[in-house]
């Protein structure tokens, strides 16, 4: 357990944020800018009691998970290929750099045009944002196989499949899951930005509607719900990592 300091740190952070918020609202900051905590809490209660909200949560969660899933599969395939074939990595490098530096969010109008206002355009954006961290980590993971380990299996006459199963996959697994942890956060960003910019569904859309109707407490409440969704999904991926690669201690 990392224990004490982390718990204290978390408590201090909460106290500071809540304290600053309370002081600010009491000091007369406009509730349009920063609503009192109480009204955010009651807006949150209203929000989570409505079945419509859970439908929106479902839409956003589906977009995130679908985008993440696509990125995971594509990232592993591309990452293994690039990690194994050096010439391919060299050939693909300019494309990868270009892909890394273009602001993918700027592509949203194109995706809306191509894939419509429905969930598909959000899934594409989520997958696009999540793809690189997975690919890069898989690439590094595949490359980090120790020559000594390969010698052991080589001397024992292991087949290609046995090498993959006993060595390459376990070696790459920690990197894959580290990449997945970053990627799930990116997928959340992708889905929510997609919902901000076009569409009529999802928690991102709830935030935008609340903003347009100057319902600040509801806006904050929806953001809190989004944050909880992101934390939950990240927690699941991080938990999977601890479960699947317990030998990897550099957490």
């Amino acid at each position: 357990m990392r224990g004490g300091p982390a718990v204290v740190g978390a408590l201090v952070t909460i106290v500071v944020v809540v304290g600053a918020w309370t002081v600010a609202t009491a000091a007369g900051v406009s509730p349009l800018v920063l609503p009192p905590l109480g009204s955010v809490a009651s807006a949150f209660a209203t929000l989570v009691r409505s079945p419509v909200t859970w439908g929106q949560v479902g839409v956003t969660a589906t977009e995130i998970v679908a985008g993440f899933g696509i990125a995971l599969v594509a990232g592993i395939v591309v990452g293994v290929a690039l990690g194994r074939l050096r010439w391919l990595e060299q050939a693909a490098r300019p494309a990868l750099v270009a892909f890394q530096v273009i602001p993918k969010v700027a592509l949203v109008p194109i995706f809306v045009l191509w894939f419509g206002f429905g969930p598909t355009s959000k899934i594409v954006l989520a997958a696009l944002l999540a793809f690189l961290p997975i690919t890069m980590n898989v690439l590094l993971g595949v490359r980090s196989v120790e020559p000594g380990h390969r010698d052991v299996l080589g001397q024992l006459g292991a087949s290609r499949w046995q090498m993959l199963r006993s060595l390459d996959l376990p070696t790459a697994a920690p990197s894959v899951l580290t990449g997945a942890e970053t990627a799930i956060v990116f997928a959340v960003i992708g889905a929510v930005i997609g919902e901000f910019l076009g569409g009529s569904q999802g928690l991102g859309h709830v935030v935008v509607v609340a903003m347009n109707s100057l319902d600040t407490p509801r806006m904050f409440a929806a953001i809190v719900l989004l944050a909880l969704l992101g934390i939950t999904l990240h927690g699941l991926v991080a938990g999977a990592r601890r479960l699947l690669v317990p030998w990897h201690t550099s957490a």
Partner: protein
Amino acid sequence: MTTALEGVDLTVAAGEFVAVVGRSGCGKSTLLRILAGLLEPTRGTVDVTGGSDGVGMVFQEPNLFPWYSVRDNVALPLRLSGVDSAARRARAAELCHDVGLAGFEEAAPHELSGGMRQRAALARALIRDPTILLMDEPFGALDALTRDEMVADLADLHAASGATVVFVTHSIPEAVQLAERVVLLTPRPGRVHTVVDVPLPHPRRDTTEPGFQDVVRQVRDALEAADS
């Protein structure tokens, strides 16, 4: 391309313990990797009686897989050849006992000391009952005390198993302590320079004994003669 080895003509009898010594870069490891089947010789032949199944190898690093327990590491060669898990377990327990790791079967490699990890690597090399055991500076990374212990235990294990051992080292006393013959390899390209017989009775615990020192000096002189 540099030639690592040239004209290495060496016959090792069954059950014999041969140590190969030489300076860094003399091709000791290359020789061992060829014997292990990890490298193809560009010219010449290697005849290993019993085929690759009969060969076990210990490297300078333990090279244990961190995602396996000690037991699974030791049993890895059996898993690759399709032995069922109950038989693997039993055999791994036997081997762990033989190398002094009884009770550590469930441990993860990182929980072991350097010497214990090398013991596990030795158990893994021995689990298929090899007729030939190849060892590439296996104790090179260990501290002096652990090394003395491991040398003594290896001598006992060899006496008990009767396997042929080819042992690469850069420590002359270590070679003399273990081997029946010490092969001196000289570099660029690697050749067999001298073969020194070690006519000393086992166990050779006392390295300060005159007879022991004589053989060490003989090998050292040959090494110096090769340098000049």
